[in-house]
């Protein structure tokens, strides 16, 4: 067992446990904090795959920007009746996990097909393709049109968010 292998299993366990805590905590604030733990664990897993750029972006965009927004909204709403929101049992609380387990069985059946060949070890190319230099070079040559479209999407989302959250809804 190399250090990388041990690191992967530790981070995978942390990711799964924190994900379970996200969906079981009653307090949305606790759920959001465990979601940050999950994002940081995922960033570590990206590093075991030599994806430096994705790992940094994960921490900056997800654990940074998006979760700050979520925590800000949770604090702004100041929910007090969350307790009885969770208490009421209904058919959802039983059918949801059952349907999810069926989905898991389906996904694992699909994963069983993926093995052998180049899927047994990380490609030696991966150390080169995960760097910021390579991703940036690809983004501004082969993927320049989707890149510009992403900026338009973010502009539209920004305008939409401002309009939606305005005090007087038109």
């Amino acid at each position, binding site marked *: 067992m190399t250090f990388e292998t041990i690191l992967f299993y530790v981070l995978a366990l942390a990711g799964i446990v924190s994900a379970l805590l*996200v969906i079981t905590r009653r307090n949305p604030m606790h*759920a959001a904090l465990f979601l940050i733990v999950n994002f940081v664990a995922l960033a570590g897993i990206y590093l075991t795959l030599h994806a430096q750029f*994705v790992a940094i*972006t994960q921490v900056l*965009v997800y654990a940074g920007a998006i979760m700050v927004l979520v925590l800000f909204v949770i604090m702004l709403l100041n929910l007090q009746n969350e307790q009885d929101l969770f208490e009421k049992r209904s058919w959802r609380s039983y059918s949801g996990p059952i349907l999810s387990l069926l989905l898991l069985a389906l996904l694992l059946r699909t994963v069983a097909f993926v093995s052998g060949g180049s899927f*047994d070890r990380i*490609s030696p190319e991966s150390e080169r*393709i995960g760097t910021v230099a390579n*991703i940036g070079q690809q983004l501004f040559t082969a993927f320049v049109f989707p890149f510009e479209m992403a900026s338009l999407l973010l502009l539209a989302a920004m305008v939409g968010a401002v309009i939606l959250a305005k005090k007087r*809804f038109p």
Partner: protein
Amino acid sequence: MIPISHYLILSAVMFTIGCAGVLTRRNAIIIFMCIELMLNSVNLTFVAFSAYLGDSAGQIIVFFVMAVAAAEAAVGLAIVLALFRNKKSVDINDVNILKW
């Protein structure tokens, strides 16, 4: 070396947990966080295939997924805010005006 199936199994388990959260919880903000969880598990699949096949396209797609997730976060939370202002609640069972 870790075979790719371990990454894919981790991703499948995390996606399922997120899906269970969306189906069972009734707090709109928690459902929102569960959707982020599902988006992240799919990102893990993209990065794993990218690293094992030696193709950078997977990591570029993760970049675009993150851009879409950021846009979704901004608009989604604005909708939750507008909803709370009108209904004084974030329980999705209270939001049924489009229900026939």
